[in-house]
């Protein structure tokens, strides 16, 4: 299937600094695609390359099957929502939103009609004559969105658009953006450093680091099966447990860790003696009976009350801290200092060679 956006062997260098090293990527038609990573990972550079603000040093960029590598920004069928909103301060809300139509010489009547419809879409139809400076941050964000959508672009690029909003508004906008994307069927390419936001909104996520995609997967794939220690650490909360392989079997490894032995499901187990790090999500750690297999004993040192959840932090016999997360059922939390046996199931543990 032809992608909405395709990057073929794209390299971007700024003088001596390599921002992107050979990126091959196909973003599918109509998907909510997120580029996630810490600052400096190349996610914004990728977005700017697609928008046309930067030209690739090597490789080709295709939008809707057309090679646009040399096409200037204003002729590309993509629009961007900027983190700073970038609304034109001297124009009214309505003129801001109709700007893409004005420069394309759409007749006035049609222009105003479409701009009003776009403003209604983002629930900002109320005050078309105000200036951007008279709006709150969240309202400006909506207007910027309407302006980027009014010309019905093939692809909408969003550069950390929710970064400047407070938490509650942010959650609302996440939900609304996702709904809008489903309804309009436009391909969204979203850039963020917020892993929770990426997990909530995306169909697929490209986790980037050092100018490369290190994992491209669905949110659940990325969360449940991180392919690297970095991915495991970056996405969500995770327990990191140092250990040593004592026995490698078919699709299984036996690892010595936390003063006990653990079986770990693993497609290519490393040889015996290899130093490894085991990871497990806090919500997969379970209290078990004292003699259960794949378990170790620890002492409760801290209880965090999060509202929906409780975080229980244990110190294990070898000094490693293991966090257990369980739903807040209303029952009184266990006392700090109590001992417990923690079970780490073979299928929930992941193994990375260190």
């Amino acid at each position, binding site marked *: 299937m032809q992608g909405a956006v395709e990057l073929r062997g794209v390299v971007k260098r700024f003088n001596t600094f390599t921002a992107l090293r050979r990126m091959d990527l196909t973003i599918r038609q109509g998907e909510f695609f997120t580029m996630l990573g810490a600052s400096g990972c190349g996610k914004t550079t990728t977005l700017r390359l697609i*928008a046309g*603000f930067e030209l690739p040093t090597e490789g080709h960029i295709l939008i809707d099957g057309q090679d646009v590598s040399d096409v200037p920004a204003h*002729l590309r069928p993509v629009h961007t929502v900027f983190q*700073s909103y970038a609304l*034109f*301060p001297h*124009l009214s809300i309505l003129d801001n939103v109709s700007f893409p139509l004005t*420069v394309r010489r759409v007749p006035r009547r049609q222009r105003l009609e479409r701009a009003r419809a776009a403003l209604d879409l983002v629930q900002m139809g109320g005050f078309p004559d105000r200036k951007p400076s008279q709006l709150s941050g969240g309202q400006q964000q909506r207007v910027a969105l309407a302006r980027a959508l009014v010309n019905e672009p093939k692809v909408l690029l969003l550069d950390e658009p929710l970064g400047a909003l407070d938490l509650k508004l942010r959650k609302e906008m996440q939900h609304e953006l996702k709904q809008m994307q489903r309804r309009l069927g436009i391909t969204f390419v979203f850039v963020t450093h917020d892993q929770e936001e990426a997990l909530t909104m995306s169909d697929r996520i490209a986790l980037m680091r050092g100018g490369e995609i290190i994992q491209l997967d669905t949110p659940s794939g990325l969360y449940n099966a991180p392919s690297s220690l970095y991915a495991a650490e970056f996405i969500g909360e995770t327990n990191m447990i140092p250990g040593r392989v004592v026995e490698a079997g078919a699709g299984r490894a036996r690892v010595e860790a936390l003063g006990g032995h653990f079986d770990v499901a693993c497609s290519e187990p490393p040889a015996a003696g290899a130093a490894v790090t085991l990871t497990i999500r806090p919500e997969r750690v379970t209290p078990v009976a004292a003699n259960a297999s794949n378990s170790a004993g620890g002492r409760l040192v801290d209880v965090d009350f999060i509202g929906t959840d409780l975080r229980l932090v244990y110190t294990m016999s070898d000094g490693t801290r293991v966090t257990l997360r369980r739903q807040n059922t209303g029952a009184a939390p266990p006392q700090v200092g109590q001992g417990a046996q923690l079970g780490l199931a073979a299928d929930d543990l992941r193994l990375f060679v260190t």
Partner: protein
Amino acid sequence: MSGQQAHRAGPGWFTRVFAHGLSGWVTLITYIFMLAPIVVLIAFAFNAGRSTVVWTGFSLDWFEVVWNNRHIARALQVSLIVAVASAAISTATGALAAVAITRRQFLGRDALGAALAAPLVLPEIVLGVALLVFMSFMGVTLGYGTMIIGHVLVSLPFSTLIVRAAASSLDLQLENAAADLGANEWQTFRMVTLPQLMPAIFTAFILSATLSFDNLVMSTFTSGVGTTTLPLRIYSMLKLGITPEINALGTLLVVANVAILFLVMGRYLPLMLKTSRR
């Protein structure tokens, strides 16, 4: 202990006298020094006699003399034509240069920026002589053309600086956004960059026009037959002796300048404050 502390904390008599008492007086004296000559000038414009130092009675006669002086009317017309024409050229050139210098990467950008500011530090008389020599070498007759060129030369550094300051504080992201939304370079300039620079461009125009209107040195070298400006006319009138006619003319000029100033401030200052507050 506590008494000692209080003594140390309070300002000494020296500070009290100079910082609090004297500074007020110094300010007042400075203002008197600056404004007194103008007040005296205006006062004697209403003098009935021919003297500009001895008061003999109130009259508006000298204003009538100014009004009826054909030379002054003609000089005023020349001054206005040269001021408007040179300010228009200076502002347009300066604005485009400022946008190029702040917005684009090209070879010799910094050199151009410095060269445009150079007339600020060059003595105007040197510029005037150089231009006069150049014009006579080229065989150009002195007149409106040479004078307008000369005045553009004087005001260009100012208009460039004013628009540059405004252009460098513009949000680059806005131009990116315009391109992203489909505007070509010309549309971006016309619909996004230029409207935001308008207050600065207007200020540059007013300043250029004022500089041209007041100019004496450059005008001396570049005026031809029939292009005597108001300052040149006043200067030649002085040679024939000072009468309250000059005071009356000066008073009218002061009133006109202040009126323009208030017009500009009233209309554009709130607008500029509003944009800079964002």
